[in-house]
């Protein structure tokens, strides 16, 4: 079992909220994004994997109390509100948990060559010569 397999749909919903452009990713794009996340996490402690999965499940069920729906069924605006609430939470551990998840989402999206190129970033080992 990979880190993401039991929580894939929630993770994709979080990534699409953190980086709205991710909504237009096709299956190959998602696979590449998720591969980067899995590779990054493979050397991290198993306890961290468990905590991240638990955090994702909490994100999925947290909105039920407020909106009567799970996170994956919310509108984009409602998802923004939920993640914003976690980002600003008064409990530091919750803020840190969200920060970790957000970091993974950004790593997966902008760590792909296509994600980086889409920003207009085009550093070249040839430096000034390439610019000319």
């Amino acid at each position, binding site marked *: 079992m990979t880190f993401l397999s039991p929580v894939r749909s929630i993770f994709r919903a979080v990534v699409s909220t953190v980086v*709205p452009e991710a909504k237009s990713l096709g299956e190959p794009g998602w696979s590449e994004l998720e591969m980067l996340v899995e590779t990054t996490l493979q050397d991290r402690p198993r306890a961290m994997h468990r905590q991240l999965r638990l955090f994702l499940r909490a994100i999925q069920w947290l909105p039920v109390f407020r909106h009567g729906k799970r996170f994956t069924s919310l509108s984009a605006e409602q998802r*923004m509100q939920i993640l914003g609430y976690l980002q*600003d939470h008064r409990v*530091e551990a919750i803020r840190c948990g969200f920060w970790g998840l957000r970091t993974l989402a950004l790593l997966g999206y902008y760590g792909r*060559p296509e994600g980086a190129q889409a920003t*207009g970033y085009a550093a070249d080992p*040839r430096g000034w*010569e390439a610019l000319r």
Partner: protein
Amino acid sequence: MTRRSYDLVIVGSGAGGGTVAQELSSLCRDGVRIVVLEKGPKLSAEEFTGRELEMAQALYEDGGGFLNAERTMTFAFGSTYGGSTAVYTGTSLLPPKHVLERWNVPDCTFADVEQRARKFMTENNVHFLEDKWINENNRLFVEGCRLLGYRAQQFPVNLKGCRGSSLCNLGCPNQAKQGTDRVQLPRAEQNGVEVITRCEVLRIGEKTISARVHAKPSGGKGEPSPWPPGDYEIEAKVIVVCAGAVNSPALLLRSGLGPRLPRLGSGFTCHPAFIMVAEHARAITNFVGHPKSFYLDQFARSDRFLLETCMYFPFVTAKSMAGFGGEHSRFMRAFPRLQMILVLACDEVDAHNRVTVDSAGRPVVHYRCTPEVMRGLVQGAIVSARIFFAAGALRVHLPVAPCATIERTDAARLDQIAEHPDFKPGKISISAAHLQGGCAMGRGPADSVTDGFGRVHGIPWLFVADSSLFPNSLEINPYLTIMALADRVAETIRKDAHALL
């Protein structure tokens, strides 16, 4: 278990280890056997691709994302042939006199450290980049400072044949940066020093080292280790620990030296930092040219922060900005128009901030930003925002503001934000790359771990030679100072060679 025997073992190959290796390598002519044990791999020139994630994974400990125990910040430090000198921007400043005087370490005078640092300035080709190679990201910083009456200064850099790839922090793809991987280690190897990569030192015993050589992972970068994978016990007459401010104290702690050295792991500082980003109306040269050519230190003593120009890569930039969603993406999509400044706090030794080890002996860094550090970062962010706007930026991403995007028309709000910042650990991305302390120099075991020459108190054959020796924050980029201190350690060993070796 394979057994090996050397006269001198150096743990780590960065600014400290590389320097010690070179400075003692002349002893090889007299039959002295010296080995450097480096945990990371050695990459060939063509393996430096400049691709963000693959290079970070290959060259940094934990891919550059080593977390503190509180999980509120990350530390970036090299784990490769040359250590962090392979992944820094080559900025090479002399140690500040007031800092060395405040350290007040016996036998460690400013004049001596400065003189040695100057030797390495010459050896590693430290100079100012010519004006024609300064990109607009740096020029806008200088211009913004000038308009506000601030004194931006140019960084001396250790480059030779720089093509301006801007990829310094991912290992120079053109081998232009003159770190220990380019200068000191090759010379040491020429003189007969062995360098064993992928070799993780587990413990230090009585003149012995337990180490494990790792196999090259499938598909990984770098050469295989010169030694076959497996466990080793290495006898040594002298051991010099140069594994950096996280791994040096951790190694000594898991070797059981904590009880006799109560200050071991204490006094960790790191210049906690975050990246500020601003958007201009037009594209500027930012991801071409040397990324870190200027700095502003006039607030270091009064407000405890430094500003440095910088230019990072898409993932690091995205991670460093606060927030998410459309606003965040808008800045990211403006990458060719972005100007960046790194805000660094001059932190002080604090009782909470230290290195320990977990039950498996792995390093754990406990670090919390003190109120002074938070104030320094907030003030630094506000001054950076003023510099951006003075340089003509349309909008600034201010991570300490409740709403991070500040439009040019709202610049008047900066004073208000300075008074009521939104600084929550775990919300703002803080990282650090100037890791210092943990094996501080000083007078005796009650106040330090080593004497003024890096010799561990009470253990005449064990030395430390890296940034962990700093008794408090250096307040500037540390590499030349590390090299100067390592040079002092090497000289001490050379002078005592007849007794030690």
